[in-house]
């Protein structure tokens, strides 16, 4: 469903993505782990056509995204890390706007909006302006907007930022539902328990390169650490362990 091959993208001299290749099948959730600045958001933006890669190919639902962005956009739902919502619109208005952008007929859009608002317990707040919403409520509205068209490929960038534990649980159920309905989900997150519980496979991005990819079991084998948890594996593959120990020692926080 989502196939990225040898993708590279630079901002001036900074190489944000370097020869990245990943694949997400229909009905699969791939977790993308990476430290800040490792290239997760750049990869998501290339997939959503917001950025144009320097080289490589992206195919989503058998459509070449770089050659046919128009056709590809219809299959993609994207929740950005910091989604910008119009503060003067209400939740209901913003979702109507998002549905309208995708050409969903009004009656159908109304039904879907009500369903999402109820699911996220926002139906009482649907006529409130978004400026008065908490961070978590805004995130729920943004997720509903990203999924309103029931896209085949779903890209979620840090979806649980600012959410309370019940909402995180709810988000996990939504991701699980997407998987069961045959959607391909690329989930970028720092929250390791979320990735561990929600994802079928994990890709680790470091310095713009995919340094490891596979199920957690496969990663344990590759790292030769049969007992390691996801945090250990991430630190191991991202090369952060040794680096961090040295930094802590320098700062006098570890002997």
């Amino acid at each position, binding site marked *: 469903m989502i196939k990225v091959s040898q993708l590279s993208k630079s901002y001036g001299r900074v190489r944000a993505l370097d020869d990245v290749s990943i694949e997400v099948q229909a009905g699969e959730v791939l977790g993308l782990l990476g430290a800040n600045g490792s290239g997760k958001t750049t990869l998501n*933006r290339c997939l*959503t*056509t*917001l*950025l*144009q890669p320097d080289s490589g190919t992206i195919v989503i639902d058998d459509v070449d995204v770089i050659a046919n*962005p*128009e056709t590809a*956009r*219809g299959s*993609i739902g*994207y929740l*950005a890390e910091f*989604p*910008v*919502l*119009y*503060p*003067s*619109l*209400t939740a*209901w*208005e913003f979702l*109507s*706007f*998002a*549905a*309208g*952008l*995708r*050409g*969903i*007929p*009004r009656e159908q859009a109304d039904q879907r909006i009500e369903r999402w608002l109820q699911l996220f317990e926002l139906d009482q707040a649907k*006529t*409130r*302006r978004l*400026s*008065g919403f908490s961070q978590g409520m805004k995130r729920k509205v943004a997720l509903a*907007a990203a999924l309103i068209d029931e896209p085949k490929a779903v890209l979620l960038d840090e979806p649980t930022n600012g959410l309370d534990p019940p909402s995180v649980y709810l988000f996990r159920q939504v991701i699980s539902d997407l998987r069961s309905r045959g959607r391909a989900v690329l989930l970028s997150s720092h929250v390791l328990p979320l990735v561990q519980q929600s994802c079928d496979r994990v890709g680790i991005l470091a310095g713009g390169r995919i340094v490891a990819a596979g199920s957690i079991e496969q990663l344990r084998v590759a790292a030769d650490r049969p007992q390691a948890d996801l945090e250990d594996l991430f630190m191991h593959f991202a090369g952060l362990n040794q680096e961090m120990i040295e930094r802590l020692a320098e700062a006098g926080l570890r002997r």
Partner: protein
Amino acid sequence: MSADSKPAQSGAPEPWQVATRLRWKMVSGVLTDPISLLLLAVGAWALYRGAASLSGEQTAGPLLVSLSSLCAALVFATRYADRLLFGEQDDKFLRVQALGPLGLYRVRCEELSWWLRPLVLLVAAAGLGTSGWFLALLSGAGVALLAPTGIHCALLLRSATPGMNRILPMAALGLAAASLYLWADVPLRADKWSGWLPLLPAGAMLTLALTCRSLAAKSYRHRFAELASKAGEQDRHEPLWPWRVLGRCLPLATPIQARLTRDLILLWRGWDGRGATLLLLSPLSCIYLSDSLSGSMREGAILWRVLESAALGSAAIAYAAGPNLTVLRSSAMAWSRCAPQPGRYELRAAVLYGAFFALVHGGLTLLVVVTTQEGRFAEHLGALCFPVLALELFVVHFSVVYSMAESLGRRIAGEGALILALAFVAAGLAVIAVLYPPGLLGYLLITLGLAARARQRYETLEVTW
């Protein structure tokens, strides 16, 4: 050092002064923006001309112009003070800092006085057009000192009329505008005092401003904490019907309808202050037109004058629909860029948005032609309709297309170039309209390439925000 803030180290600025400097860094960017300054200059000129044309000798015009402009300044100061005290994003951050009991008041008072500076110029321009330099200086001084009055009025309105603090100032403004419209021509008895009448509101405003300097601080001490707490509890709900009604009234493709509805609702809710100002200023061109039409004019001269007025008004609308809308939309651009055919729909929605206001303005311009000097020019209406409406629509179209093609992602340089291009296009269209009106249709052919570039630019711009 004041008694109400934490003692500052020797030579170090007090906390409220640090906060004020920080705010100035944010506000100065907006106030010294070259485009805002240009709009201010145009607005001042339009007010000067408008005030002069409404201030007939021995009529109530000068008094009412002076009264209305000062009323508008007071309403602005009150509404903006309310926003600064209760609606700013950094409010929660500043309120928990050790600025002292009056620290936040000082910060907001300073900030309001900066926002009043453009208004000082506008009110002075109206005063100059009404009765000369003395009124201009007196009115300007009154407005320059209006910040504490604005804060005092905002606090009074919030505590005395909960829920009505938005409606009452607007009602006062509407009343002033209606009185100006209805009674500006009413003759006044000629005596030696009549020339001084316009100075009365300005003098009263200055006295009020000076009186409120101490009252505002007291009012803030007594009322602010309670009112701010209440404001935090308020839950602002909006009705669903505007979106539904607009959706039904606009028989367009769903993606265009959604964009257009969003733009109109955001405009109505005050999200686009600059665009709203431009749209409200655009009918001033009709005052210019009604002043400049004279019975001795030949047909060609009448056409030229009407087109001049149409070009002036539509340029303001074009700016609101072109670069202004492009900049506003760009903050949440990721949503529409990820949707199918974003360039095409975005362009069409923006053109339709501008075209709506351009047609209203075109209609107003033609109405002025029909009604000026008791219908003396009505016979020219048939010949004027096509060139006026075509000019209005094409100026707006050009602005939207050019903004998307050239100024998307590079604001100031793009907007500066647009002003020159817009003047050139408007003049060119007016010349063609005078010489050979059907030739105006050629404009659409010439700009086909630019429109394609606009769509492509929108769809390929790298969105990194």
